[in-house]
């Protein structure tokens, strides 16, 4: 490997020997193509015409009135596929194409990354397999159906709790046996090097656009930028645009699940301890001996016991703050945005909104928060209906 892939002491590539050559090949290809003129031109055209970039920055006036300060939504929910995930799958998918790979595999939790990979598989005519925990298949069935419609095979993963962690385990196992012809299109800015770097690169468009839109539309930078954190890709994408603007607070919101004290949550940075999982040294939810904990969250995309290495460093240096929002708070925020703006946020993104709601009365009315609305909530309607029945 040419680079160590470290963020401070975090990250690295703690993988079985058999995966080293294929990660090396990926690293080499990424650094060869990511600035290549033709590659960049093709990606930017696809981002514009296929995915729908740039995404708008929208002033949520009625939501703002409720919380008592100004809230702007970075509308990643409007992209093709309904989430920020397409930024990454276009970038990596195109990389796979330039590398001459013809088969894609991916893990997925909420199904958004799986769907975004299945779309790209269809677009480039690549055979696509999506690994997904059986619990997630059940709770995100709309996305499962969409993936299949795009021609992808969805492989149910029974192990563990049948969620994102287990899907990654099986995708890695499959990759181990198919390293020669298969491209693993990893879904978040975590896992072994070079993924945290690659995924971040493809998500920085969110932050770049948002910063410029702030300057153009508001005439100034925001006071805070808020994003939900599962593996950390949408958050690192938007944070990256503001990281050098020291006066802009960066706030990552993790899944508080039932509650932090119950232990049934997925708030890795808030409540975890450093260890090694899925190829990286990062904060983890684990027991005393290092066995990985089962996690719980109403949002499948945040239901993961590890996190990206750069967030670990940002936590330690204090440049970003990490907090947790519980299931009920996220569901409340989902309801509030839907009612006040007519926008259905993904339950993942609802965690970021929940943080804003928790700040009601704590910020003055001229303060500006930009929140990354990482995805739309259509996939979550049945969960919300179950947890918050409308009645008649």
């Amino acid at each position, binding site marked *: 490997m040419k680079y160590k892939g470290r963020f401070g002491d975090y990250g690295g*590539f*703690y993988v079985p020997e058999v995966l*080293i050559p294929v990660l090396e090949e990926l690293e080499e290809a990424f650094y060869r193509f990511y600035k290549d003129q033709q590659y960049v031109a093709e990606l930017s055209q696809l981002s514009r015409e296929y995915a729908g970039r740039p995404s708008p920055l929208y002033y949520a006036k009625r939501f703002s009135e409720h919380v008592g300060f100004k809230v702007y939504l970075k509308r990643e929910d409007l992209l093709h596929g309904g989430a920020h995930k397409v930024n990454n799958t276009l970038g990596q998918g195109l990389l796979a194409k330039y590398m001459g790979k013809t088969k894609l595999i991916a893990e997925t939790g909420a199904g958004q990354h799986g769907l975004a990979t299945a779309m790209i598989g269809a677009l480039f005519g690549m055979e696509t397999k999506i690994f997904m925990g059986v619990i997630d298949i059940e709770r995100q069935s709309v996305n499962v159906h969409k993936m299949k419609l795009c021609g992808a095979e969805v492989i149910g993963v029974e192990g563990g709790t049948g969620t994102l962690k287990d899907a990654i385990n099986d995708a890695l*196992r499959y990759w181990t046996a198919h390293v020669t012809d298969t491209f693993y299109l990893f879904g978040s800015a975590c896992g072994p090097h070079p993924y945290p770097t690659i995924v971040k690169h493809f998500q920085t468009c969110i932050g770049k656009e948002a910063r410029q839109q702030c300057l153009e539309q508001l005439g100034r930078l925001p006071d805070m930028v808020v994003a939900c954190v599962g593996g950390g890709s949408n958050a690192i994408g938007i944070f990256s645009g503001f990281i050098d603007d020291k006066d802009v607070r960066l706030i990552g919101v993790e899944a508080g699940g039932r509650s932090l004290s119950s232990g049934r949550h997925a708030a890795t940075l808030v409540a975890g*301890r450093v260890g090694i999982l899925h190829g990286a040294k990062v904060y983890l939810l684990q027991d005393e*001996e290092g066995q990985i904990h089962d996690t719980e969250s109403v949002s499948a995309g945040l239901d993961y016991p590890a996190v990206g290495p750069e967030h670990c460093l940002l936590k330690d240096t204090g440049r970003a703050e990490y907090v947790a929002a519980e299931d009920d708070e996220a569901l409340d925020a989902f309801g509030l945005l839907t009612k006040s703006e007519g926008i259905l946020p993904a339950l993942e993104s609802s965690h970021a909104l929940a943080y804003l709601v928790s700040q009601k009365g704590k910020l003055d009315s001229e303060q500006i928060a930009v929140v990354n609305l990482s995805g739309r909530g259509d996939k979550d309607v049945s969960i919300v209906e179950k947890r918050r029945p409308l009645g008649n």
Partner: protein
Amino acid sequence: MKTYKQVFSELKGQNRTALIPFFVIGDPDFDTSVRIVKTAIDAGADILELGIPFSDPIADGPTIQKADIRAMKSGMNLGKALEFIRKVKDYKDIPIGLLMYYNLVYQYGIEKFFNDFHKAGVNSVLVADLSIDDADEIVGPAASAGLDTVFMVTPVTKPERMKLIASKTTGFIYTVSLLGVTGSRENLSGTIEGLVGKLKELTNVPVCVGFGISKPEHAATVAQAGADGVIIGSKIVGLIEDNLNDREKMLAKISTFLGEVKSAI
């Protein structure tokens, strides 16, 4: 305490290949697991490869994943693993290699882990998710604790890297016979003979072969290719799984199978 060196040189004198069965410590429960390992020793095991169960074993196929789950459900933990190893060593002084995942070592404290497990009777610790690139995190502490090092080589490892791996290995090279995770296979991978030959050209470090070796014929082929040891995991762990409700039959099956392999190598 018997070393790998002693075993390999004894076997070389007899023109034999080491029989190295793999079990997950505590599978399906502590006491049965002790009996299984003793049975394997009686059946002619020369070295033991023992796994400590982990919640997320990404290098393992379904058979060993299930063994991990059985062991964890029956209460296996690191304290009991130490006790287990001492029990085995009391029965016979046989070299023991651990095969495990990094987080368990890391949380215990790397130096303390190596010291405590060496004292209990372990000869080496192969960390499945730690490649040679980060070997320095463990090579120093392993050496100070008196442990040998074991690293993996696979069919896609380039010759330059094989040399690097050999240079950091004091125990034996764990040669992965195929591209894939652990699991028994109908046929032996076609790459293995070339791979063993290549390694033998590059290094004098003993070469043992594992992953997918499921029949006495497989073991014989590997031995003829020049390997110093044959590691058999999923096949015998599968015998545990298949005979969970009849412990005596389980032990008999394992004994018979290992006996057959022993005479094939």
